């Protein structure tokens, strides 16, 4: 299934990220990620503090995993735009701008260590 996703279902493999991979873009990506992605992926992209991460099927992947990092930047953008059905990953085209989505990909390529960002505010008592 992973092979099929990487080679058939997830498109846009050749598109390059138009944004530079630098500290400014990374910070932009982290901010955009914190608005829309943290509820399922945690602030660190590794599910820290997400109470249901291990209780849904399919489980929410660690964004540092080989499976996720094995996608090209273009494929990650396609996933962010369109989501992955039938998993719980929603598409966010229109909810976030292209600029924000590309900056998120820079953030995904350089995620902070697991647990270093704490628990998302929405899950704090």
């Amino acid at each position: 299934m992973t092979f099929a996703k990487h080679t058939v279902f997830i498109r846009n493999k050749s598109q390059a990220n138009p944004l530079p991979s630098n500290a400014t873009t990374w910070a932009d990506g982290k901010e955009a990620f914190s608005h829309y992605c943290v509820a399922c992926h945690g602030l660190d992209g590794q599910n820290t503090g997400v109470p249901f991460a291990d209780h849904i099927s399919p489980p929410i992947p660690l964004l540092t995993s080989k499976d996720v990092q094995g996608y090209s930047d273009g494929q990650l953008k396609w996933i962010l735009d369109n989501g992955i059905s039938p998993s719980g990953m929603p598409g966010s085209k229109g909810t976030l701008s292209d600029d924000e989505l590309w900056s998120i990909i820079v953030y995904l390529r350089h995620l902070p260590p697991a647990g270093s960002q704490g628990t998302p505010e929405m899950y704090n008592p």
Partner: protein
Amino acid sequence: MKTRVIRRGMLVAIMVAGIFPGCAPKAQSSPRRIEVTARRFEFAPAEITLKKGQPVVLELKSTDAAHGLRFRELNVNVKVGAGGTTEVQFTPDKTGDFIGHCSVFCGSGHGTMALTLHVVD
């Protein structure tokens, strides 16, 4: 005699300046002010044409939630609180079409909020 010639010369110069005001030296022009209204999920106006090198002040007014307006290529980013007004001054230094986006997450249509700047010579 000399004084009369000078006076006549000054008079002619004043008349010429009155007839051709464009030829007189201009004072430093003040920045062009443009009011932009931000609301979920649009900017009004959605397109603005500017001249390269002409200073401009964008006055960003929110009528609902907190919003922002960012032109990455022009190094412009301004944020405004809910119902507030703020402004940013800049001088576009390159020509082209530049798309600015809302830079403060404001809801489900946030990603579609865009304003296009046409910068011309």
